[in-house]
């Protein structure tokens, strides 16, 4: 919804594609630059920790996330035994936040990942073959660009109905067009470079040229772009759940928790802040990490 179509983005990605072809040790250089950036390393560690906590939540969490005691409803933060308090059904907040990471992270990453696969393929085909194939694919993406992303996601989800799978489908559909657009512009700029011409002159077929010469140069810039979409996707996915269009109760998920706790802001305001804080921290880390990756890959500076 936000940084998907900044002007000049195309040119930047095209430049990145050219530098990518320069040297063999490119990825090693990028990696060294990335691990020297304290912000990126910090964000990567926070995200790693979140993923680990989410994966091992069944063993780490002190309580069952779906089992509550009505007597202990909405205990404040700092209550003994429930040091992050309890929710409106008396379930332990810490345990629910730990388990909630599973769904929230999955719904933030999976749509972008699928869209990355599909969008890159479409963009490669459109950019490499050009002509009417390009027109067909790119004019179709133009139609999706005519909708604001949030509206499109909510419209598709609203029509399909609530549920995990439907939310994933609608979010994926939202992210395919922008990724395809970036992949197409990078592919078009790579296709006209001399080494592709040389490969063709030495008798390489389309498939070989794409696989050996084009793909490696396109994946990098498109990957960076896709990482910048993860934070948007996290916010949108939790937003769908917040509207009641994502996962259904009693599954712990940060957006849904935010929705149900919203009714209790006059009783225990600060508890309802917690799930949103988790979404915020995750999305901030993904954004900062993506920015760090982008400047690490920008070797010119």
């Amino acid at each position, binding site marked *: *919804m*936000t*940084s998907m*179509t*900044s*002007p*000049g983005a195309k040119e930047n990605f095209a430049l990145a594609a050219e530098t990518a072809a320069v040297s063999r040790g490119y990825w090693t250089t990028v990696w060294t630059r990335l691990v020297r950036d304290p912000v990126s390393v910090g964000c990567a560690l926070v995200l790693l920790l979140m993923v680990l906590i989410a994966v091992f939540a069944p063993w780490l969490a002190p309580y069952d996330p779906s089992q509550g005691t009505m007597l202990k409803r909405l205990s404040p933060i700092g209550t003994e035994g429930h040091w992050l308090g309890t929710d409106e059904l008396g379930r332990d907040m810490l345990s629910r936040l730990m388990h909630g990471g599973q769904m929230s992270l999955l719904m933030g990453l999976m749509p972008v990942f699928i869209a990355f696969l599909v969008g890159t393929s479409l963009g490669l085909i459109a950019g490499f073959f050009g002509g009417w194939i390009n027109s067909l694919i790119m004019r179709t993406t*133009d*139609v*999706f660009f*005519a*909708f*604001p*992303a*949030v*509206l499109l996601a*909510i*419209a*598709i989800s*609203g*029509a*399909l*109905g609530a549920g995990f799978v439907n939310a994933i489908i609608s979010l994926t559909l939202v992210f395919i067009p922008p990724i395809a657009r970036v992949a197409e512009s990078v592919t078009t700029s790579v296709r006209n470079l001399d080494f592709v011409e040389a490969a063709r002159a030495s008798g390489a077929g389309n498939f070989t040229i794409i696989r050996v010469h084009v793909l490696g140069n396109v994946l990098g810039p498109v990957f960076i772009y896709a990482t910048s979409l993860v*934070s948007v996707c996290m*916010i949108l996915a*939790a*937003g769908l759940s*917040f*509207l*009641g*269009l994502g996962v259904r109760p009693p599954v712990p998920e940060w957006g849904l928790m*935010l929705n149900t706790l*919203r009714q209790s*802001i*006059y009783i225990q*305001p*600060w508890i*309802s*802040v917690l799930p*949103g*804080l988790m*979404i*915020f921290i995750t*999305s*901030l880390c*993904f*954004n*900062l990490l993506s*920015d760090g990756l982008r400047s690490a890959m920008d070797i010119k500076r």
Partner: protein
Amino acid sequence: MFVFIIRRFLYAIPIALAVAAVCFSLVHLAPGDPLTAIIPADAPAEVVIAIQQAYGMDRPLIVQFGSWIQRALQGDLGVSVATGRPVMGDIALALSNTLLLAFAAALLGFFGGILLGGLAAIYNGTWIDKLATALAITGVSIPHYWLGLLLVIIFSVQLDWLPSMGAGPGGSSDWRLDWAHLRHLVLPAVTMCFIPMGIVTRTVRATVSEILNSEFVTALYARGLRGRRIALHVAKNAAPTVLSVMGLQFGYLLGGSILVETVFSWPGTGYLLNTAIFQRDIPLLQGIILVLAMFFVGLNLLVDVLQTLMDPRIKRG
């Protein structure tokens, strides 16, 4: 240039048609018959057919689409399944509220963004730059519905300074310019201004610092120009890019307000869309999406044309 503008106008027509087709097909994305919401499960077959005929659902899809477009062009977007009222009236009222909120948020966000981004570019590398960049990245990373909730907790629940719900006192939905109504606008507008502020800050910072480093600015300094006159040159060069970003952001504000409107019960299109989704009121859903998407198409067109008029370097075609 005029050739480009005319071509751009002509290109908007197929886009608008395709957008309408997507909105129309939303009905058929929905599981089950679009009329399940109003046909009782045990209704006899002839009643079902009668209702289908009344809504025109028995004809081929392409015919339905054609007549839907034709009626939409005349301002008739069908009848709400839930209320039986024409959809258009409800949408028009809601749209005016959404536009009001979007304008307020855009005003705050664009002003803040230009100020922050400009300062960051001028004081490149200093703490001002770092603060502006940090604010910008926070603006784009924060889930705005959560920010809204946070503001409600602080300013309505704890401090009791500002109202948290509705567009006016007593749930009135017709807006007037007075303090009682403005109070209701503050929190949702501030909530929504953060994303455009972040994006505009980033754009202005990048564009202005690039211009400040360009040769012609050095030449201007060499000729003895200072302060305000340099700023005028920089602003003229940065304007097309910044304007196009602001145009897009305004469109996103219109379409993206649904979550914030839900938090604040703001009687706009987002809130109406939410109602439509949960009552499975497909004509209403279709109508809102169509109107908002058409606004967005028009806005994109306007931005492109303005950009071409402002920047003679752009020769497209």
